[in-house]
């Protein structure tokens, strides 16, 4: 077994384990910390696949910036442990087998019937120059349109989070 494969499987195991732990933990901070493990392991997977740039971005943006935001929000909300109700037991009873069947089916389709061939490492364009070419040339329009998306998201936050009284006075 070559060393690459061992590493790939190890990162994969961390990833899956972290994701399961994320769901199993009751306290949001613990869940957030397992999400960091998932993100970091994913970055390792990207690196092994030869996408160095994506791996670096994954660490900086997801494991770094976005997770910090997550933790801030959890602390600001002062979110406590989640409570389990009867509904959540039903959700587990139905959801776990459903999810297992779903993921086994997906894995089977992807492995056996994807219609694609395996690509050797490094054959995929993962170089920053290739990505820049895609992002700022071929996909320039989606890249620019994303700014509208961010703008309305900010506006939405302002609208929904501002105090209703200060907005225009109450009805009645």
């Amino acid at each position, binding site marked *: 077994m070559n060393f690459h494969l061992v590493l790939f499987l190890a990162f994969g195991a961390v990833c899956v384990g972290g994701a399961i732990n994320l769901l199993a933990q009751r306290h949001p901070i613990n869940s957030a910390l397992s999400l960091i493990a998932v993100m970091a392991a994913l970055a390792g997977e990207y690196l092994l696949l030869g996408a160095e740039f994506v791996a670096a971005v994954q660490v900086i943006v997801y494991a770094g910036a976005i997770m910090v935001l997550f933790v801030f929000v959890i602390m600001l909300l002062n979110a406590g442990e989640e409570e389990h109700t009867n509904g959540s037991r039903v959700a587990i009873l139905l959801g776990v087998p459903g999810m297992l069947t779903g993921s086994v089916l997906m894995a089977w389709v992807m492995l056996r*019937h994807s*219609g694609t061939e395996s690509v050797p490492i490094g054959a995929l364009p993962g170089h920053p120059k290739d990505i820049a070419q895609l992002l700022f040339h071929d996909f*320039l329009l989606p890249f620019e*349109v994303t700014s509208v998306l961010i703008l309305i998201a900010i506006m939405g936050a302002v609208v929904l989070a501002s105090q209703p009284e200060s907005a225009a006075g109450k*009805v009645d």
Partner: protein
Amino acid sequence: MIVIATFAPAFSQTLPQSADYVRILPELVLSVFGMIVMLLEPVLDEGKGQKILGLIALAGTLAGIGATWFMAQSPGLAFWNMVQVDGFSVFFHVLVIAIAAVVILTSYEYMAVQRIRAGEYYALILFGVVGMALMSSAVELVLIFIALEISSISSYVLAGFRRHEAASAESSLKYFLLGSFATAFFLYGVALMFGATGSTNIDQIGRMLRAGAIPLLAFVAVAFLFVGLGFKVAAAPFHIWTPDVYEGAPAPVVGFMSTAPKAAAFAVLLRIVFVINVPNTFWLIWISAALSMTLGNVGALVQNNVKRLLAYSSIAHAGYLLVAFAAAPGLGTSAAMFYTAAYAAMNLGAFAVVSHFAGAGERYVTLEDYEGLGRSSPLLAAALTIFLLSLIGIPMTGGFFAKFYVFSAAVKANLIGLTIIGVLNSGVGAYYYLRIIVMMYMRESRKEVPVTPVPFALRLALAACIAATIYLGVFPSRVLRYAQDSARQLVQQSPPEIPSSASVSTVPEIL
């Protein structure tokens, strides 16, 4: 088989040409007006300023329609195969922008009555329309995804605009949570489609799938895309959110949400179904159409709240529309296009009446409140009657020809079973629409319901909706011919028909 991207003449043509900008001109114009509204909002004073913002937003939509005309003069691809200007996209551009114009007119007085701050409201409508317009012209799944998100997020926020009502917050949150779930399905579908074909460009995917045997992964991908879009158009079994969201959201916004984002999502679905043309979609659509029609109409029978009733009715109409998707590409596309236009006219009109009649805090929205409306406000009652008759599908209204074309396209494609289900359902639907009319004209009002005079802006909106409904019902040929021409264009760019149910036996029904 995998072809990621061709970097052939890398930097020969690095800058977008002016034709590229012309082909997204309506989106540019609408964005600029949206930003003007945003920037002026804090400068203008609270009272009169709101009205000015409404007028600017209205001017923005009119300029957008003008820009669409300009855009229609230069058909073709832009921004390296991202958007395509053809008859199809022009049709949906005009439709979506016109819907926004009518909604702005409907909201003009409503905002003051409900004491909602207007600046962000109008800006969100304009930006939302940017997303919807882009959805109709995009031929790249990545761009479609971003445009879909723009349209969805603006709808989530708009649904929560009645800030002091718990129902509105519930509506917004429910729509947001379920909507992001559905969008995740769509995005997963895009990723799987890229895995199956090595491309996210719709034309290229279609070509790729026609070239060889279709991998199972592509079927799964289309199923995921259908789940995502089925949620947006409120088709069963992804319709559960609709009544709650429509009940809590402001009435003009419901009129907007139930027509414009739906029309745009149907445009995307048309492109995916008929241009990518994966054969197995047939049964997916058949089942969803039959379920939507039945669940929508049966659900509407027991409703007492007019907004909930119209929500179920919109599920049923999504079902009728999906019938067209199961038909042959050419006829199906034109029938679906006509249906979205006719449905937009009548449904917007109905919600315009509801939004005025509901009064401050939207208090009067039950069926009992509508008793005796024929006497207390003949104008509102007459307008609502026309829209309801059109929703039933009575001749001389747009709703009649819309249903007629859809069902005749279905019969020509030998979908007898689906047509029978559809016609039976229209019969069921007639009952609850007629019930409102009976309430308005044949019952004495038992409750004291104040009816304020209809303001000018709302009159304008109602007149536009009535004119469109009657026009489509009396002279449908012009719009239909335009739809047929652009449908032919769309289908020509795409593969010839693959026999829809013959070659699917090996594939299990997933979802």
